């Protein structure tokens, strides 16, 4: 027996199968009791759904609806202005993240500026004054310095090992 055709029974019920698939399904239904029963159940299900009773609605519903529509006609909602805010779920998440970043990011940037101590420019005058006070007995330039500088500048480079 060919393989079961339960996955094609719904399309078969709607007459939506191509010629080849239609032939296969009909041939299979001739010989397969299980698929044949499933098809009959699908037919019965469709008849049940089509035969469901008309739904009742409450007595005042029509008046309420009419009143809402009338109010809408008199004072139409400005859909154009609202539509900008109506975004699909994936974009809602992105929008929420962007909003959070904006809300949290701006204060964080502002705080960061205030938490790090500002760099003060080097006070050269104060440095020299301090040096003069504390190093009177050790002047900045002594006799040995020029000799050291000259000897260092003209010293031959030591060969690398």
């Amino acid at each position: 027996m060919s393989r079961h055709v339960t996955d094609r029974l719904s399309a078969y019920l709607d007459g939506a199968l191509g010629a080849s698939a239609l032939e296969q399904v009909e041939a299979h239904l001739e010989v397969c009791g299980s698929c044949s029963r499933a098809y009959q159940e699908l037919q019965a299900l469709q008849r049940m759904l089509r035969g469901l009773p008309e739904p009742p609605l409450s007595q005042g519903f029509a008046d309420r609806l009419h009143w809402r529509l009338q109010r809408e006609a008199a004072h139409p909602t400005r859909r154009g202005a609202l539509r900008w805010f109506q975004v699909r779920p994936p974009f809602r998440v992105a929008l929420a993240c962007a909003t959070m970043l904006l809300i949290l990011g701006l204060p964080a940037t502002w705080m960061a500026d205030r938490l790090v101590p500002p760099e003060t420019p080097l006070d050269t005058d104060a440095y020299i004054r301090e040096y003069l006070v504390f190093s009177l007995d050790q002047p900045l330039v002594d006799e040995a310095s020029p000799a050291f500088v000259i000897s260092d500048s003209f010293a031959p480079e030591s060969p690398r090992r």
Partner: protein
Amino acid sequence: MADAVSVLPGLTEETAVTSGPAERSGAHRLAAFEGLLQRHLRGIRRVAYRLAGNVDDAEDLLQEALVEAFRAFDRYQPGTYFDRWVYRIMTRTHIDWVRRRGRRPETSLDAPVGPSGDTLVSLIGDTRGDPQHLTDIADLDGPIQAALDRLPAEFKTAVVLADVEGLSYDEIAAAVGCPVGTVRSRLHRARETLRRALQPYLMRGSWK
């Protein structure tokens, strides 16, 4: 229902005398909208009820979808199917509702359903029970609706539009905004789930 949703009897004449062009235009739009609604109300009401699952939610869904449709009425193309156009708005509204509420089944397994007040577990889940007393589709309305309510919203929409309203694959695809292949696959899965859930009742009664 149809009587109460009037085409503004008397109001249009009054507004023509006392109000400006904007109000007159609103009244004319409302008259045209309600005229179309009267003609297609049965099907629209049926779809709302089967999607929502109970009268209270159906009325909320119907009202929200129809107000939404009225706001967008300028985009409706005269001469096309008004009911199909409303279904598109209604199915989108319904799926938004379900997403907002979460994907839990709207009907509890222990909640009483049907005219006899049986629980869903006893009517659907337990196939050992004798469903012989349920011999009329009206009696089965509760269990069928409960089985529909347990389907994911997209599947329920497909099966309601196809089997309750008799729309074609193309019409359903246009209403829910998805490819025809997706409609076909959703219908197959929805019907298969319903067939298994309602199996004890399918081969009995007048729909056999």
